[in-house]
């Protein structure tokens, strides 16, 4: 069985770099929310990666070499930014 967390293939570096920015960089996340297509192109993502992100398709992203955790947390942070009222803060 393939491990859940696998060695990130170097070919997926631009995609992983972008997911890292989405979850860690507020400015990139805001820009992506406002203008997804130019933001993805500026980060050097190819059409496969762009369409997987457009669909929010985790399985496709992971198949392209995205780290599952980065996909997960990028989605969490996008969702927290989109619907802040949906969360209880302790």
């Amino acid at each position: 069985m393939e491990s859940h967390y696998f060695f990130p293939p170097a070919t997926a570096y631009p995609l992983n770099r972008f997911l890292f920015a989405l979850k860690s960089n507020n400015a990139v996340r805001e820009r992506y929310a406002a203008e997804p297509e130019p933001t993805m192109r500026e980060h050097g993502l190819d059409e496969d990666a762009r369409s997987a992100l457009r669909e929010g398709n985790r399985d496709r992203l992971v198949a392209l070499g995205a780290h599952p955790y980065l996909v997960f947390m990028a989605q969490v942070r996008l969702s927290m930014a989109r619907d802040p009222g949906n969360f209880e803060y302790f």
Partner: protein
Amino acid sequence: MPLVAAFALPHTPQLLVRPPTEDRELVLRVHAAFAEVKRRLTSARPDVIAVIAGDHIEGFFLNAVPALAVFVGTRAAGEFGRYRYGFDVHEPLARAIVEQGIEGGFDLTYSQDVPLDYAFYVPLHFAMPQPQVPIVPLYVNVYLPPQPAPRRCYAWGQALRRILDARVERVALIASGGLSHYPGTDRYSSPDYDFDRALLTSLVEGRGAETARLTGEELDKAGNVELRTWITLLGAVGAARAEVLCYEPSWHHGNAAVAWPL
């Protein structure tokens, strides 16, 4: 000064910022365990809290992937949603850990500039004594293969204990991580709670050293890649018997809080 306290705690961000998917009562029961840890930490009067945590690709990225790292700065800061965290770092202890760790054969990475991961500040949010105590962030790579072998983590914990026991400061140790969960994968909603329960039983019986014989493959399979932080702490506490303060399996995460009476 021998270690004054040791705990292993969960850090799942849903404990800090709860989405509607999470059972509020369960979250509050984990908070009660954090409160008990805070009470015990306060009475242990530590001068510094060393926190062993896995980086969630928050601080370190693929430009450099340290297996074991120490934050040697003056202040560690991180943010999550509307929260902004800042902790003083006990630089003399952090530096001693790096110097003596390397001298002892552990080729540690150090950083003076890395954002603090939520694995550090979620437990500290709930369990940090007031007034705040300086920390030393100790990193173990858990999410970016190849990760350090469990036996190496255990050996690092043993070496860490020798370093800490020789210091004048009163040091408390917290491992942050686990238990079973599979974020970002198809198994997210079916963690391996049997693994967790067997593990907790072995810790209560003082058999923590057995974790050093686990393989990386077994940890990945059980959704316990983060157990490396606990294994590091187990190297430091040896055969001390654990006390389980809570085990609260949610629909996606085995939340465990454990104390080691020293």
